[in-house]
């Protein structure tokens, strides 16, 4: 059997049938070694008879050795490895949920590697062959370890995505401040995806509360550039199309400067520095007046 | 990579074909699980493009497909006519939004309503417009 030097990525060593048979016949020894190492590395000296862990590991070994025999152990992307890749990805996700860190799951595979090496070392006398077979197994298992990290990260990404959605929901509350007036304090950056959510929420609330005026407060929006301004203008336009009016409040001096420097035209939009003055304007527009009780003089808002 | 789960084709010859076509698009959009807003955007875009097909393309046909790509599901529409073609696609796609004028073809606005917008046209040969709206797009 020729051993190819690792010059080209496409030329891989094909594991010998004898080695594969050896692994198959000593599967249980490998499993036992592995389980021992697992309990040692996690610092728990309990007898590893926890059936969950044992079954998981057993299934993995069986699938792994099966894959090796049937895929020719050549191309890691070959379908022969699909099943075992699925198994290890599943194990990684499940372990992640059970509270194992990615390192612990990585170590899980490293101890498996060690177990195989020990068994090979016992049985293979040809040191060149031992080296080649070990290298091959190493290559395969290292790739699988990367898969476990990727699976773990993807799990995290899913959590982040879900939380982002939740945050969007929470951070655009529409508040009815008076009969016919709703207020929407926008907190955080206003990108195009968020604008859609804001518009939907706002317009639905306007219909539900039968409001004629919506106050958009942007004091919680860190930066207003042309894009953000465009989103605000769109929101105002949509509100008007439905027959309500929109006042934008919370305009900080920096924003006023930026808007002018960028040449953004806000002349069609009613803008106020504070929510309070926006509310005052809204009252005026609805021809409402706020008066102190029992007092002759009128106090407006 | 886009996988087609379901598809059908409708000929668009006269104005009466528009409404049934729109309703069919709605069926696909609902089946894809789109929100009301996204359904509205898709059907409105489809309405614009199908009217263009009739008005400028002299009629043609539309392919409606339920598609998936990775984790996304959506609807793909392909509008094909053998009309005169569009002379200057870049000009047609130029954004007239800021001037407030409604463009003859309404293409830039339509593009904003969907996630993928592709247009191929050859003078004297015809025009093909393909759009995709993802469920969460």
């Amino acid at each position, binding site marked *: 059997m020729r051993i190819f030097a690792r010059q080209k990525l496409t030329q891989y060593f094909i594991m010998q049938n004898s080695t594969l048979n050896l692994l198959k016949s000593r599967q249980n020894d490998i499993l036992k070694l592995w389980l021992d190492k697992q309990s040692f590395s996690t610092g728990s000296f309990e007898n590893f008879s926890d059936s969950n862990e044992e079954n998981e590991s057993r299934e993995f070994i069986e699938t792994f050795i099966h894959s090796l025999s049937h895929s020719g152990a050549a191309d890691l992307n070959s379908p022969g490895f699909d099943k075992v890749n699925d198994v290890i990805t599943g194990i990684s996700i499940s372990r992640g949920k059970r509270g194992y860190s990615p390192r612990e799951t990585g170590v899980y595979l490293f101890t498996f590697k060690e177990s195989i090496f020990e068994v090979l070392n016992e049985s293979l006398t040809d040191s060149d062959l031992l080296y080649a077979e070990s290298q091959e197994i190493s290559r395969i298992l290292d790739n699988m370890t990367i898969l476990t990290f990727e699976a773990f990260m993807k799990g995290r990404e899913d959590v982040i995505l879900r939380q982002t959605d939740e945050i969007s929901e929470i951070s655009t509350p529409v508040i009815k401040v008076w009969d016919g007036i709703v207020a929407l304090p926008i907190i955080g950056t206003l990108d195009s995806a968020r604008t*859609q959510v804001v*518009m*939907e929420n706002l*317009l*639905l609330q*306007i*219909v539900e509360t*039968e*409001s*004629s*005026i919506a106050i958009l407060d942007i004091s919680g929006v860190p930066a207003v550039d042309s894009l953000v301004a465009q989103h605000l203008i*769109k929101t105002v*336009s*949509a*509100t*008007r*199309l*439905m*027959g*309500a*009016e929109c006042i934008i409040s919370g305009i900080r001096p920096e924003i006023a400067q930026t808007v002018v420097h960028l040449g953004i035209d806000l002349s069609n939009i009613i803008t106020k520095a504070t929510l309070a003055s926006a509310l005052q304007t809204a009252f*005026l*527009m*609805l*021809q409402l007046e706020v008066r102190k009780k029992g007092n002759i003089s009128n106090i407006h808002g | 990579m886009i996988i087609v789960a379901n598809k059908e084709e409708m000929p668009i010859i006269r*104005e*009466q074909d*528009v*409404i049934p076509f*729109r309703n069919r698009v709605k069926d696909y959009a609902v089946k894809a699980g789109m929100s*009301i*807003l996204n*359904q*509205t*955007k898709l*059907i*409105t875009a489809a*309405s*614009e493009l199908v*009217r263009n097909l009739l008005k400028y393309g002299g009629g043609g046909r539309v392919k409606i497909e339920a598609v998936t790509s990775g984790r996304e599901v959506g609807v793909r529409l392909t509008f094909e006519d053998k009309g005169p073609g569009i002379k200057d696609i870049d000009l047609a796609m130029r954004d*007239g*939004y800021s001037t*407030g004028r*409604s463009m003859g073809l*309404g293409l*830039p*606005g*339509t593009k*904003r*309503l969907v996630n993928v917008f592709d247009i191929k046209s050859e003078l004297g040969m015809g025009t093909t417009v393909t759009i995709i709206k993802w469920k969460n797009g």
Partner: protein
Amino acid sequence: MDKIPILKMGDFLLITIQVDLYDQLAENLESDLVNAVNKFKSKGVLIDISAVSIIDSFMGRILGNIAIMSKIMDAQTVVVGMQPAVAITLVELGLPLNGVISALNVEKGMELLRKKIYNGYNPEQDYDHSSE
């Protein structure tokens, strides 16, 4: 032939659009409306689009036409009940719907018409809710 019914409510006309407008229907609507405004000397037109789920440029043009035609005949037009999804889509599409005034529902639409017609009419302030 299909026709969209036009209701007379005092000085106003109310049209409720509940079906998809195709060419012939839209043309009929335009001419029926103009004739009705003329016949009843109506001062205002309310178009209820709360049942309309898609407004494309064609429909937008019809609404705009009706507004302009009515204005020429000295009647104010108000469009009421636009669905939120439609409003958002129209803005994204870039359809300005110039000359079209909106109100949230028929009630508010009539209020608006009354203010404009009887309390002094200012053509510059289309979206102004206070006429004082």
